[in-house]
């Protein structure tokens, strides 16, 4: 295995993150604070509690997921799209590396950054509400698995995208709606029955629900189902990535 290559990719991707550190850190802090003002203060004053949890606290797992999912997809997509765009991909393609190594480098860096932002949001949220975590280990695992699997998904998007519009389209048109409709800011039980059924097909529901259970021990779906959903999603991404590299799709002429 070419560990030096994984390290080189990871370090250089992290360096890119730290070059834009301010914008990477400040923007999630600001948007989290704004969500608290809008959802917490405006809506929270009408909805007191959801399933026994103060509304301000209830939305935190969803809020973290919203940002972490978007960040994972965007970072990983941009990470691999950029070398395609400036032409430096030639080096990766001609290096003695397997696609697993390339993927681990790029996805690892994207997931790390998303994870860091998730933790920053958690810390920011702590300033607004009381946030005990019932199962910290499980919460961390949900967060990590989400970052990794959605960074893989972003990696695929970055390879697929032929221009910047396409690169931004998926996070905008797919991820954000899925998160908002995935029970991030409400319990699914608050929806009409027909919509509850539709929501069950939304993979994000399982992530948010499992993550929230780790915080408050209340969930829309069973924790096991949540874990299974992440595992399934990850397997699908891995399979897609393997196929992409085996065929050279959009990378090798």
């Amino acid at each position, binding site marked *: 295995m070419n560990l*030096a290559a994984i390290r080189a990719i990871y370090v250089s991707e992290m360096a890119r993150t730290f070059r834009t550190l301010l914008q990477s850190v400040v923007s999630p802090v600001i948007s989290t604070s704004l969500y608290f003002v809008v959802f917490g203060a405006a809506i929270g004053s009408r909805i007191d509690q959801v399933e026994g949890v103060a509304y301000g606290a209830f939305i935190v797992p969803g809020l973290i997921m919203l940002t972490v999912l978007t960040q994972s997809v965007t970072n990983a997509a941009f990470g691999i799209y950029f070398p395609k765009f400036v032409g430096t991909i030639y080096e990766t393609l001609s290096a003695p590396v397997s696609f697993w190594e390339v993927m681990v480098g790029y996805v690892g860096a994207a997931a790390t950054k998303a994870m860091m932002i998730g933790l920053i949001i958690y810390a920011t949220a702590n300033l607004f509400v009381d946030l005990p975590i019932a199962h910290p280990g499980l919460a961390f695992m949900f967060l990590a698995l989400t970052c990794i699997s959605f960074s893989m998904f972003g990696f695929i998007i970055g390879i697929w995208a032929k221009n910047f519009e396409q690169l931004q389209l998926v996070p905008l048109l797919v991820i954000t709606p899925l998160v908002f409709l995935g029970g991030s800011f409400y319990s699914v039980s608050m929806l009409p029955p027909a919509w509850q059924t539709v929501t069950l097909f939304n993979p994000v529901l399982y992530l948010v629900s499992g993550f929230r259970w780790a915080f408050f021990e209340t969930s829309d779906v069973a924790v096991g189902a949540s874990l299974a959903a992440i595992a399934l999603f990850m397997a699908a991404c891995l399979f897609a990535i393997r196929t992409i590299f085996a065929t050279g799709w959009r990378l090798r002429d």
Partner: protein
Amino acid sequence: MTSQDRPIVSIRDVRKTYATGFQALKGVDLEIARGEVLALLGPNGAGKTTLISLICGMARLEEGIIEVGGHDVVRDYRAARRMIGLVPQELALEPFSKVRDSVAYSRGLFGKPRDDARVEAVLRSLSLWEKRDAKINELSGGMKRRVLIAKALAHDPEVLFLDEPTAGVDVELRKGMWDVMRELRAQGVTIILTTHYIEEAEAMADRVAVISGGRILLIEETGALMRRMGSKRLTIELQTPAGAIPPALERYDLTLSADGMSIDYAYDRAAERTGIASLLHDLSQAGLRLRDVRTTQDSLEDIFVNLVKEDP
């Protein structure tokens, strides 16, 4: 046979058809000896970049076999690619990264442990050490090209591919690039360079492979090829048609046109005596009356046309 005698790069019956259905390589065979400088000389669209892409892994090799250092570039790609350094045709560099980081990155990507001293040596050898902390986008085009070379050399490759290293650069930079190549050759690096300048092939290469339309038309030692390619033509138009070349002019390399109205004289542009003066004298002695005389030099296109014609 020892590994020293075996070709370091061996290409056998390689074809490449792109997704568009266009066949860019139509059966290429080529063997490159350890330590030599080989120029792939050919016009735009000949398939030079395609061939390099297949060897180095940017394009998928589906027909034919390529080995580098005895390693199959598809099955044993890690071993093959570790031996290869590649300087691409385009100035593809990450704009915001520092020169030093960019070179260190390449070294890591090729599986070598971090070695600041080695990176420094490479940067110094390319006169880039002063620019080590500059961002790529602050550099001139010539410097960027050298950064690409530094990246390609960072893992100490045995074979270096340079794809049109001097396309579009001025004379001074070109000479500088040639010096770099000579130095590498002296260190024993095998160099394959592509170019569409005859002068560059002449100045740098031990052997020249002429490629056009996806085929290698010939591979020849540079001196011999230049003698063949370097000919100029003197066209002598006659006032009245001649039936044949007069026997008195046999010692010249003359060709009579089909209508008998002009005679072509091929001579070596590099020769000290072109023989033009005596030819003109002997022509009038033979009773031929001249209407006009002009010289033409084979362009690269002419040479390719001739080579294709010669190809059986």
